[in-house]
């Protein structure tokens, strides 16, 4: 964050100037190189996650993303321990492997025992994340790692978007573009698969294949998102824009588009806010914006709380007029 403060030191004064700074987007910040890199990273990630998150939310698997996000963390630490460095690609692979193991365990337990999915997720999430913390404390207490800088490891828990570098943006692109491409190529199949799995099977769409695809693209995004938003909050990048979009659109393609756009917009605004105010971490700021948009949508959307209220009032009025 302090990197930013250098660029924006003159702009951070007090809460009172919030609205002013807000209304006239600060050109100094917008045109600063660091801001552009961070913004590009978060926006691409949020756009892709927003689109692909609609699959897991509509398939009723939103909390699996949360569990996988937490479970990816020990993989990051192990990758660090093996590589002795914070190479984004290696940590990404570590995250993917440990997330995949967690996913396999979740499937194994929830399919073959009478434990429900909910309990399974809670157990996997906490034990994997616990393992991450154990490994992290091992590194901290172990002399073999004493000479290696490990401060960055913490960033994978809470995310530290401010440290996004060009290499990270490339990684995000390298994951986001294939994910979106897979989604586009199999759009039709995803649609039938989510809506009516039995019928999908009857016309030759293999469920296992679709689940695998879904897992691959979701996990890729989660693993890349760890550095930006952290293991704890990454799932909201998948869930929250989808919820917003479902308040507005009634067709799958529009839901995807709106989710993607709200994700992107929240990422921009969140990054901007966090670069104006010291201490506002980028990931949480983005999620704050995302959630507020979601709640607003639930309030004023066409099927939202207000619409329902007015419909009911109209109904009562009409009745009393008759």
């Amino acid at each position, binding site marked *: 964050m302090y990197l930013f403060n250098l660029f924006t030191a003159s702009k951070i004064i007090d809460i009172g100037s919030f609205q002013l700074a807000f209304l006239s987007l600060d050109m100094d910040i917008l045109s600063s190189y660091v801001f552009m890199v961070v913004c590009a990273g978060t926006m691409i990630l949020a756009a892709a996650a927003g689109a692909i998150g609609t699959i897991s*939310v509509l398939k*009723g698997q*939103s*909390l699996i*993303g*949360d569990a996988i996000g*937490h479970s990816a963390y020990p993989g990051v630490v192990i990758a660090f321990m093996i590589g002795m460095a914070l190479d984004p690609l290696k940590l990404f692979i570590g995250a993917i492997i440990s997330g995949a193991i967690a996913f396999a*365990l979740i499937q*194994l*337990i929830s399919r*073959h*025992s*009478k*434990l*429900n999915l*909910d*309990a*399974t*997720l*809670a*157990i996997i*999430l*906490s*034990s*994997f*994340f*616990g*393992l*991450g*913390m*154990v490994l*992290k*404390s*091992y590194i901290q*207490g172990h002399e073999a790692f004493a000479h290696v800088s490990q401060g960055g490891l*913490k960033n994978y*828990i*809470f995310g530290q978007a401010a440290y996004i570098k060009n290499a990270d943006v490339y990684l995000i692109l390298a994951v986001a573009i294939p994910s979106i491409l897979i989604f586009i190529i199999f759009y039709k199949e995803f649609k039938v698969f989510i809506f009516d799995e039995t019928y999908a099977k009857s016309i030759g769409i293999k469920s296992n294949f679709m689940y695998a695809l879904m897992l691959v693209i979701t996990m890729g995004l989660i693993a890349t998102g760890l550095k930006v938003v952290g293991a*704890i*909050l990454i*799932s*909201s990048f998948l*869930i*929250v824009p989808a*919820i917003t979009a*479902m308040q507005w659109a009634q067709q799958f393609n529009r839901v995807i588009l709106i989710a993607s756009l709200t994700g992107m917009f929240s990422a921009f605004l969140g990054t901007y806010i966090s670069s104006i105010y*010291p*201490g*506002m*971490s980028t*990931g*949480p*700021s983005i*999620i*704050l914006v995302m*959630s507020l948009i*979601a709640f607003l949508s*639930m309030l004023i*959307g066409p099927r*939202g709380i207000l619409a329902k209220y007015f419909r009911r009032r109209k109904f009562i009025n009409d009745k009393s007029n008759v």
Partner: protein
Amino acid sequence: MINLMFKLSNFIGLGEQILITMIITAIACALLGCFLVLRKLSMVTDALSHSILLGIVIAYFVTKDLGSPFLIIGAGIFGVFTVYSIELVANTGLVKNDDAVGIIFPLYFSLGVILISMFASNVHLDTDIVLMGQTIMIPLYTTEFLGIVLPKSLLNMSIILLINVIFILLFYKELKVSTFDPQQATLSGFKSTFLFYCLMALSSFTAVSAFDTVGAILVISLFIAPSASAYLITKDLKYMLIVASLYATVNSIIGYYVAVALNVSISGMVAVISGLTCFLTVLFYENGVVTSLLRLRRNRRQLKLDLVIVHIGNHLGQESEQLELGFDSIANHLSWKQERSSKTLKRLIKENYIVAEQVKKIFILTEKGQERYDLLKTQYGL
């Protein structure tokens, strides 16, 4: 005066104090966890444990003292508010219950993180502590109670455990009914919503109190893992509560000693061990993955034998018997690979269920086979 005071640390080592606090915390969580698992509220604990961070921050802004009991009360109330918000969002019908959890807790957690980093960064509220607690510091903060000097967390958690036990004992019948059949409970006069919020309030207070010793993530594990394990191997709520407490104790002991031996995070290790014992239970209990897989294989082998017996019994004496039961054609008719069918047929011949009839070149049932066929017909109502 000081000399007259009973100091726990004079009798029990610092490490053991940590362990005892851990066990008491684990049992307090596991007891409530049983009801959460049975009510399919496991992921609500995830939301709860993350959200109370915001509760603690807000309460801290008011009390300005991390040690204040009001902090626990304030954060506890906020936990209940979290559950209420989830219910509120889910009840609009605009999102599913899971999604409501998935949207509420990131919001509260984000707010908590932002508030800490903006206004409270000088306070001793490190994010590591948030997640993993300060298990190792337990014996350092002591307090005096009835003339005994003991760790503050130990006192707090003992009180919480006592409250939880009393609550369960008092409302055992009501909790049981409302857990298994909420509608029936409301009909027979118990307010199940009231009980639900009582349960959630206690969970919230337990989580908040456990929070600064074991942290947000371990709280989830303490609530759910022992109770889920107990749920698998017991058939009665009473036993489930007892077994869950046993699991909680064993997990804490193993986790503690392993962590000390390796010099790693105690609370993290207890979470790992809890996950591990639960996983082992899933694999090996009576209907576990491994045990039932073995049984399944055995039964399916028998089922295949029975299947052929029924097939032969059904077609024997029909016009089509030559085709259906012929030496070469039977495998085809069952759509089995030659290898698989010859293996099964050999077994059947060896066990004297069928014989190869050489004139018609078909398989027929022996007397024993006929008996089995009749038995199967009655057994499955064919």
